[in-house]
Structures are given as C-alpha cells and as structure tokens.
C-alpha cells in the first residue's frame, strides 16, 4: 500500500519533471540535437547492421539450400594427402563403377549423378562463347532441385550411348542465340555437334560466385569419351532419402568406397564427402559471427553516443549551477534535482533512439536496394535498441545527475 503510493508519487514526479527537462533541452536545441546525434547514429547502425547481417545470413542460407536437398558430394582425392592439397576432384580415384556401386548398394540413396567437367568454346548461330561443359546423369536436375523452362532432360539411354545432346544454361543460350529459342538448335564443342534438347531455369550466381546459368549439361559419358578422354570422375552427386539419413548414408558410402579402393585401416580416404547439411551449419555459424561483429561495431558507436550525452550533461550541470542552487533554496530535494538531470539525459537518448530506429530502417532498406539480398529488420532489434538507448541515458546521465544533486545549496547559489 505504502509502496504503491510512493511508486505513484515517483511516477507523477517524473511526469512533472519531464516538463522541467523538456524546456531545458529546447532552450539549447542545437546542442541537444548534436548530442542526440551520437545516439541516433549508434542506434541506426545497430538496426541497419543487424538487418544487413540477418539479410546476408538468409541469402547465403537460401543459396546453400539451392544446392539441392539432402545432397552429398563425393570428391576425388584426399583433403590432406601428403600436406599438399591439389584441389578437390583433381585426383583420379573415383570411377563410374564406384558411382554405380553407390547407387546400387547404399540403401538410402535415391539419386546419383557422376560429374565431370571441362571448359570449351561453344560455337553456334555464327557466335562463339567460352563456357563450362558439365557431364551429369539424368538424376542431376532432381538432385539439384533444378527445372527446365523448355524441352527435356536427356535419358539413361542417351547416357549409355554417349549421345551428343545438351541442356543449355539460360546465360549461355542468351549469348549464343539471343532471343531465339535454342531448343533443337545445334551447338559445336571441339568440333563435335550437339543438339540442344532442354533450356535450364535461371539460378543466378552460386556459392562460389560463379554463374550457374553459363553451362552446357551433357551426359557424363559423352564428356569422358568424346571431349576429354578422362577415365575418372571429378565428383559424384548423391541425393539421400531424408535429412535424418545423411549421416548413415555418408558412413555407408565411406565404407563402400574404402572397400572398393582396397584401403586398409592405416590409409587415409582417397576421396572426400561434402555434406550439404554441414556446409549449411558452417555457413550459419560464420554468418552468425559476422553478424555479431557488425553488431559489436554498431554497439561501440552507441557507447560513444552515450559518452557524448554524459559530456554534455556534465557541461550542463556546471553551466546551471546557480539554477540548481536556486531550486535547492526553494526546496528541491537532492532526489528531485537528480531526477531532473536524469530525465534530460534519458529524454535525449530516447529521442535519439526513436530517430535512430527510423534512420536504421531507412538505411537497411537502402542497403537492400543495392545488395542482392533483402535486409531484414526484426522487431526484437528495435526493442533492444530502444531499451539500450534508455539504459544508456540512465547509465551516462547518472553521474552528472548525482553530481548536480550533491551540490551544496549555498555554494551553488554563489557560483559565478
């Protein structure tokens, strides 16, 4: 009961004090604005940075999942062979038979696509364009969750016969054929004519930044027999039945390949399995760290803003020493003086926070326009920014306010 009335008193007193604090701030409008600017910049950068971090994270995660669902990629070569890493897929260890065995013997595997690739000039329609020629199996589109906008994928029979058919990326099609429909057209690679039977949906740039739309996808057998003469695969793309089966499938594939390659306990794997789930987790943790860093940098500018408030409040207390003395003479208790200066500091920082939130949202929008991802402003960062700027006002306003309240009335009144 007693506590309730004293709390109520405090609220009313704070409310009254607001009408002392606000005019005081307005009297020094320019100074108040400049002081609040520190907080405005701090809060705005916190909001914008977190939004950009969120957006980048969401964008990268989308790219990772665009790799395909429940994807395992087996690369030839060990990542730690003799301390020299010559690049994944460069070693010659995985054969077509290995890929077939994976599809046949590992239970949860629902799709297998052996992969080989090369770069070559593609000539068609009187134009010349350097592009990637990627050899895959018909499962590839399903594994990568990729669709055709026109035509169809080649078949298993065409793989067996190393047929000269190709599915063309949207960028390559544009470069070679312009607005013409590429389906049914012929394209020459290393003097071998291919018939274009399908047009890939545009996928944009991938994880490594390479344009996924600039390629010709052909049967892997065709690349090996007709273009490069390779007998080994660069990698094998494998789709697993469910994300909970990834671990088991990876273990089984490892065991199978070790057995097929005759590796005993003392030998390292001569292949490397990339788990899409692992990549996604790594990416999430890396972008999380980046987000934290961005947030920390923004937080520091908020701190600097707070110090600015403290600085100005200290100046203000000194300037208004006589006013403080007068207020004390007419009966202001030390607490009332403290409340007044605290209120000024909190008003400055809260106002700064409010404007900062608006600026931050604007900045996030602007970044979203220029970057290829959407900056996501979440409500929690707004609430936190508000709470923090309020806390900064209290924290950095406290010392000057206490200094004001500790003044001796007669000394303050006599102050020149």
């Amino acid at each position, binding site marked *: 009961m007693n506590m309730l009335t004293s709390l109520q008193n405090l609220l009313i007193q704070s409310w009254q004090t607001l009408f002392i604090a606000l005019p005081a701030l307005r*009297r020094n409008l320019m100074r108040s604005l400049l002081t609040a600017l520190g907080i405005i910049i701090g809060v705005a950068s916190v909001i914008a940075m977190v939004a950009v971090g969120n957006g980048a994270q969401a964008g990268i995660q989308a790219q990772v999942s665009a790799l395909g669902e429940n994807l395992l990629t087996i690369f030839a070569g060990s990542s730690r062979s003799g301390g020299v890493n010559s690049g994944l897929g460069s070693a010659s260890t995985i054969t077509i038979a290995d890929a077939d065995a994976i599809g046949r013997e590992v239970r949860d595997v629902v799709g297998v696509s052996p992969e080989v690739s090369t770069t070559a000039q593609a000539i068609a329609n009187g134009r010349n364009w350097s592009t990637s020629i990627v050899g895959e199996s018909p499962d590839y589109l399903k594994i990568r969750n990729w669709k055709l906008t026109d035509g169809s994928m080649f078949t298993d029979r065409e793989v067996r016969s190393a047929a000269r058919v190709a599915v063309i990326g949207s960028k390559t099609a544009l470069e070679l054929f312009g607005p013409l429909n590429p389906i049914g057209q012929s394209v020459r690679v290393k003097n071998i004519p291919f018939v274009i039977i399908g047009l890939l949906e545009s996928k944009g740039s991938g994880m490594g930044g390479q344009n996924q739309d600039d390629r010709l996808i052909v049967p892997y057998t065709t690349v090996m027999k007709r273009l490069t003469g390779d007998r080994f695969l660069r990698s094998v793309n494998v789709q697993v039945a469910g994300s909970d089966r990834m671990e088991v499938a990876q273990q089984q594939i490892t065991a199978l390949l070790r057995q097929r390659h005759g590796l005993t306990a003392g030998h390292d794997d001569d292949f490397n399995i990339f788990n899409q789930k692992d990549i996604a987790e790594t990416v999430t943790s890396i972008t999380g760290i980046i987000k934290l860093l961005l947030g920390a940098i923004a937080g520091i500018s908020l701190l600097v803003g707070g110090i600015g408030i403290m600085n100005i409040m200290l100046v203000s207390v000194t300037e208004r020493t006589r006013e403080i003395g007068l*207020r*004390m*003479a*007419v009966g202001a208790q*030390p*607490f009332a003086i403290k409340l007044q200066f605290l209120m000024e500091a909190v008003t400055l920082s809260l106002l700064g926070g409010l404007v900062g939130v608006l600026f931050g949202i604007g900045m996030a929008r602007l970044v979203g326009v220029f970057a290829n991802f959407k900056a996501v402003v979440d409500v929690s960062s707004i609430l936190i920014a508000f709470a923090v700027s309020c806390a900064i006002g209290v924290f950095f306003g406290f010392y000057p306010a206490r200094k004001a309240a500790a003044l001796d009335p007669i000394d303050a*009144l006599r102050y020149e």
Partner: protein
Amino acid sequence: MSAPAPALAKPLLHLQDLTKTYHTGEVEVKAVRGVTLEIQRGEFVAIMGASGSGKSTLMNMLGCLDQATGGAYLLDGDDVATLDRRQLAMLRNRKLGFVFQSFNLLARTTAIENVELPLLYTMPLTSAKERRRRAVEALERVGLANRLDYHPSRLSGGQQQRIAIARALVSQPELVLADEPTGNLDTRTSIDIMGLFQELNDSGITIVMVTHELDIATYCKRVIVMRDGKVISDNANAERRRATEALAALDDAEKEANVA
C-alpha cells in the same frame, strides 16, 4: 498560526550563541561569532552593519542554506542541526521564502513559471492547475498579474524583484528572508518594495531583511546592527514609517519640482 503570539509561545527563530567559521586554506575566518537572538512571529526585522560584518552569513544560516559551526538554531522549535539535506529542503519549501539582491530568476522562463518553482517541490505534490492558480494569486498580490508570460529580461529591476517576492510567497511561508532586496534598485522602487513587504508583514508573515541603507531600515519594526560577527545593538524602531505615505510625499515633491 497568524494569531497574535501569547507571551509564552515559543519564538519563530531562536539563536543560541550561533557561530560560523570559514576555513579557506590556512586562514580561519570567523564570520559569525556567537549570536544569540529571538525573533517572534509577525516581526519585521532589519539587519544592518558594515560590509563583512557577517550579515549574509547569518542570513544563510537562518535560511537553512548553510549549517552553523557552533551554537544552536531552533526554527519553529526544531533544532536545524539535527536535520539531513532532504529534511532541510522540505523545511525551506514549507516554511521559508527567499528574496535575493540579484533577484535570481530563471532566465528564459516566464514570470509565472518562475513563481511556480517552489510548488514543483512540495510534498505531497501539487497539481499543475493548483500551481498555476496559486502562482497567479501571488503575482496578483505583488501587482504583476498582467505580466504572467513575460520573461525576466523584459521586465524592470523592480518588477523582477516583485516576481522574486511572489515566488517567495507562493508556498505561503511563515518567514521571508531577504538579503539586500533593494540593493540593486533606485530609491523610489526601493520604497515600493518596502511597501510590499509591509503589506505582507501586516498579513502575518515574519520578515527578516538585510540592508545597508538606514532609510530602508526605518520601514522595519526592529533593527539589529552587527559588527565583526556580533550583534552590537538590537532596538525596536519607534518611528516606523509607512511606505504608502513616503510614496505620496515623494509624488508631491515631484509635482512641486515640476511646477517650479
């Protein structure tokens, strides 16, 4: 409260051997050296004395703005030395009003806001409406009801001092303390202010004021003279003048001067 004090009633102010010593570095300044004094309700006291005789120091102690070094000071029966900062502030707010030589109004703040100032710090709190009502009333009492929204910079010295007096009155204090309230004003305005003080005193408010001018002291009921931190004389003023009469006389004199 404003009824005439019976003989046995306790005095409003009771000073017993009050001293104040300032320590500034090595030197000790004994500003007040043992003042014993009683002031009853309804009195109008002038404190006079040479510069440096300790008048302001004494006033600051009376106003609970400064603590005595020795002796006792009872205000309305309460020993001030036993009160903490918070209680002293509350006491100043309830029982005391101050008028300063330099007015001490808040600049860039309207007359009425200046007058409302003490009411911001009352316990229990005073509502905005009530604050305004009482501030207007106080300004009416000093004859400045038509200057509510003026800033001090746009008012004459006499008007500023009237606002300061309204501020001292607004919390209905028992005691008004004024340290050279007419020190910055011309003769006519000074008499004006004294007239206002006499009115207040007639309504029951006790007034203690410091002045250098013998002429001003003649408007008070009792005159105390200090020298070197001590009271050297303390007499009732038998030939007390009324400010209203003095002003009328001044008017007549001016008229004659104009005619001549």
